[in-house]
């Protein structure tokens, strides 16, 4: 094995979530572990939502990237526990989301249900309304800002 587990993890920072191309799969917490077992790189990944259709693309992107670095013996396993959660998003991840135009998740799902209005990622106004609780992907909802008159997406707490 030429590359260490740490080096593989660093490489995987070049695989981005196909739905949110400003976040890589390591900072999103989709990559759970990289282990070398019996001459094989075993990578565990976890879905954001159970039905996340991006998982197939992510698996393919991981294999393509590692193959292009001459790393062939890779096994990817999907795991479900512990469940993926937005509660672990770092401040820098949230800032990247906001700069990309997606309102980042609030502290947790309880807070989200209490505070009805999402904050507009463009002008920081709270004078917004919900257009749809389900958006273009499972992880987002749709909103409209009454101040800057822009529609925007919000990354739901899960």
């Amino acid at each position, binding site marked *: 094995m030429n590359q260490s587990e740490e080096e593989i993890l660093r490489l995987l920072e070049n695989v981005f979530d196909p739905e949110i191309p400003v976040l890589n799969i390591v900072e999103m917490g989709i990559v759970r572990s990289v282990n070398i077992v019996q001459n094989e790189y075993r990578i565990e990944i976890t879905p954001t*939502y159970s*039905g*996340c259709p991006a998982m197939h693309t992510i698996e393919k992107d991981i294999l393509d990237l590692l193959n292009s670095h001459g790393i062939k013996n890779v096994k990817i396993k*999907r795991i479900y*526990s*512990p469940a993926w959660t937005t509660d672990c998003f770092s401040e820098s991840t949230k800032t990247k989301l906001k700069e990309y135009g997606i309102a980042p998740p609030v502290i947790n799902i309880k807070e989200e*249900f209490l505070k009805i209005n999402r904050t507009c990622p463009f002008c920081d106004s709270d004078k917004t309304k919900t257009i749809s*609780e389900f*958006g273009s992907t499972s992880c987002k909802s749709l909103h409209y800002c009454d101040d800057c008159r822009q529609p925007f997406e919000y990354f739901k707490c899960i």
Partner: protein
Amino acid sequence: MTNILDKNIQNALFNYILGLGDDRLILGHRLSEWCGHAHILEEDIALGNIGLDLIGQASAYLSLAAEVENKNRTEDDLAYFRNEYEFKNFQLVEQPNIDFAYTIVRQFFFDVYEGIFLEELAKSKFEQMAGIAKKSIKENIYHTRHSRNWILRLGDGTEESHVKTQTAINDLWKFTGEIFSENENDNILINENFAPDLKPLKSKWNEIIKSVLNEATLEMPENIGFSSGSRSGIHTEHLGHLLAEMQIVARSFPGAKW
């Protein structure tokens, strides 16, 4: 873990997880039938998203079932190459969409059940199954909020929406008895702390349903003549048609990839 299980328990677990997968696969498929047909775009997206969550959960359960069975079958083999009598999903989830009221009532009955059930399944001693359950808990919170809000709007909406929703409730009620029934297979797992005991959960389900229907000015039907048998492969006439559509491509081109 699965290779040290007693044969009886292994078999019971396989059947049980298959049932969990089938419930979500069939309901997810029903919701997918709405794609492009809902009355507003937002609702089309909502039903599609909920269906996708359920099919994702089904995929996780069916992969696990295949692993427990240990006979070289895959989740796709289980989804596409079993016949009607081998499916174990609740009769409730195979009921046709008919109209938006039926779809929402069916979903609401299932979502409330799922919310109560998942909390218990997440405590299972069989960790892989508990993991999938835990993963689904927050997804279910969004699903339940969606179906509950619609029950309120439809029940307490126009006269037409009220009548349609009450009709759907009355028609689908007979399928809600078996979602809390237990068979011998379940009892083996309950004894091992692998599966939750459903009996104490039924009253909780009844309470929630009653309070929401009440708020929506809808009536709770009387408990007479519940239909049952789905976990042993007994289904209504609707499942066969659904499977024909769901399985046709996989069966026409076995092993096809795209």
